[in-house]
């Protein structure tokens, strides 16, 4: 180092010491977990006011975003710090970069704690299901992400041959509000008798065959966690169910008055378990709805009351919208015969006598 360089270094050093402190301080950004805001310190007052006058001079972006566009933020000053409040919460596990006053600052968010999702149940749960089954339910342990089912769920025959396009392709996936239960509709065009796809491609499910429904291990939960291992459900296919629902054919197991034993129904077919839970209700002799624990696996329905049974006539009410898993209702089979329009249906009601033994 020559004399001139040494002198310059000293002069520069002296100049820095004379500058106001905020400029010397390093510009830093940190995320305030409580408010979700990014707090930027070390900016000169004029740099802060420049941002507040013109928000364009600041940009908060996902690191490596293919777009130069910054996310929506509102900026304000708090003491010597600048508060950058994103309009939408920064995504857990992601890295953002904040560009301001010629500096690019990195903000890393801790990865979210996620749980591996599991397929907890599949309906219909029966080992043999009708060849014209319309609706399947997949029930997961965690809320799942929308928009993946078409790619991630497949149906194969016993020898592993994939069934081509077995499900109705709808833009909107059918989930319950918590996004833990997905509804899959087998293509109705392929279930209905005499329909083009059914004749041309055959029904997706053939009587007497065994099938395996497989959910890809890549299916992600809403939190981004994949299933980790493929899950499959095997079932055998029996004869199609093409009759209208007839509640009078259900077997009823009535408990004794005074007990809290379940009141059980056994269906003559596999009912839609989701619909059965919602659309079959019981009224006490005094006209009040019976409260308790309702269970249905589609093959039957049972209610364990909160309070013991009274002697008298209970009324089992079946909503006309109840469907079995082949889409048949009380009024009409799914494949309605020509000229059967006007099958207006009212709710069915069955009297159940509860007696003292």
């Amino acid at each position, binding site marked *: 180092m020559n004399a001139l360089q040494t002198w310059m270094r000293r002069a520069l050093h002296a100049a820095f010491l004379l500058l106001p402190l905020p400029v010397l301080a390093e510009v830093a950004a940190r995320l305030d977990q409580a408010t979700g805001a990014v707090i930027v310190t070390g900016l000169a007052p004029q740099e802060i006011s420049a941002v507040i006058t013109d928000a364009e001079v600041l940009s908060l972006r996902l690191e490596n975003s293919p777009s130069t566009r910054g996310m929506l933020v509102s900026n304000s000053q708090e003491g010597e710090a600048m508060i950058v409040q994103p309009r939408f919460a920064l995504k857990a596990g992601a890295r953002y970069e904040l560009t301001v006053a010629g500096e690019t600052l990195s903000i890393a968010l801790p990865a979210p704690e996620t749980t591996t999702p599991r397929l907890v149940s599949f309906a219909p749960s029966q080992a043999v299901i009708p060849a014209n089954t319309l609706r399947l339910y997949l029930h997961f342990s965690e809320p799942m992400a929308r928009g993946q089912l078409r790619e991630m769920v497949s149906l194969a025959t016993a020898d592993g041959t994939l069934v081509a396009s077995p499900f109705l392709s709808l833009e909107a996936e059918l989930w319950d509000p*918590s996004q833990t239960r997905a509804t899959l509709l087998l293509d109705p065009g392929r279930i209905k008798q005499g329909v083009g796809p059914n004749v041309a491609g055959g029904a997706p499910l053939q009587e007497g065959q065994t099938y395996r429904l497989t959910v890809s291990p890549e299916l992600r939960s809403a939190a981004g966690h994949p299933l980790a291992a493929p899950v499959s459900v095997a079932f055998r296919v029996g004869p199609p169910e093409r009759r209208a629902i007839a509640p009078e054919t259900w077997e009823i197991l009535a408990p004794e008055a005074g007990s809290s034993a379940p009141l059980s129904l056994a269906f003559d077919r596999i009912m839609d378990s989701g619909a059965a839970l919602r659309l079959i209700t019981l009224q006490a002799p005094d006209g009040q709805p019976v409260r308790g624990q309702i269970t249905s696996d589609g093959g039957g329905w049972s209610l364990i009351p909160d309070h013991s049974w009274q002697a008298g006539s209970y009324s089992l009410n079946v909503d006309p919208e109840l469907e079995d898993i082949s889409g048949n209702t009380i009024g009409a089979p799914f494949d309605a015969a020509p000229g059967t329009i006007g099958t207006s249906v009212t709710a069915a009601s069955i009297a159940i006598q509860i007696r003292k033994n």
Partner: protein
Amino acid sequence: MSFTKSLLAASVVALASSGTVSAQSLSSAGALAFDTGNTLFVGDAKAGLVHAFDLTNALTNQANYQLGRAQTFEGRTVFNHLDVEIAALLGVEAADIAINDMVVHKPTKQIFLSVHRGHGPDAEAVIIAVNNGTLELVDLSAADHSSMTVGPVPTAETLEFGQPLNTLAITDIDYYNGELFVAGVSNEEFSSKLRRIPFPFTNEISTSSIEIWHAVHAQYETRAPIITQTIAELDGEPTLIAIYACTPIVRIPLAELTDGAEVRGTMIGEMGFGNTPLDIVPYVNGWDGTSNVVVTNTNRSAASINLEAIASADAMPHGEGVQNVFSVEGVYQFPLPMSGTLHLDTLDDTYALVVRHSPEDVRNIQLHTVPMPFFFDRADHIVEMNFNGSPDPFGYKAAPPVDYN
């Protein structure tokens, strides 16, 4: 294995108060529609509601935004990588968002998109506006708001069972002459119920079940969900033109859609199986003055159908002894050179607007204008008039490049 629900009396209170949703809490945002004024309707399947937002103070006229050059069959790409750009505005990756629907406010030509940030049950629903080529978040809290229940209405009895699992995915909303027509697909029922709601909302809703004849079927069926629909006057009679999940085209006079009615729609065409319709949008052919609808499809190119042809089309034969129909049949469908379309609306008499996969790179989701009446953008296609040294009889190549504002 079985599903179990507990009957909790406490849940009654929580749900009974959820009848209305404030403007700030759009639970989800799907199908979009405008009335003839400034009211934007948003289908909120998660909340089981249709929202109405008065956007009078949010709308900006887009008359000076050049949409293309129809004379030379040139559309304009408003955005390349629309998903990436919206995601950047929302601070996430493109894979984290879903563009659910698009609608144009015709008087101002302003474009609106319903978008989800996230794919989980807590996804944030937003409405994005395009303002002279820039993306803006619409502040719905500043708009006058009302809403109407269309989903499964929890009754006093069902409320005792806790949070219901059934939902209605709202597939389409149409406004016509003071009423909304809402179509949807339930996750627990396979029904063809069409909901008809007066607007401004009065808490009235009438529901009709529409039986249709499917030409691809050898018999009647009572139930299939409507996927997309529009309302047009056919010979002076307001008529619902609906396309079903199994792709028949059906016309039903609105006068027949009364509450509780079971209606037989007249099937007049078949879009062909192995395909799901996406959108049906009315337009007037500026070249010959005819009124038409354009239908976009998942697995087939789009088709144009003339309204007079729909009005005069004979019902397709049905009943016993009729052979199945597997292919495109019935009312004449003019094929349009438009595929990869995700969402469609018209901007004005000359241009349609699509959210689409770019024909050159399907990974590129574009917001793009398409000149009508042929929905044909010359640049998208391999046509001789685009080749170097080829004849230029219409002067397309001689025209100077469009200098967009």
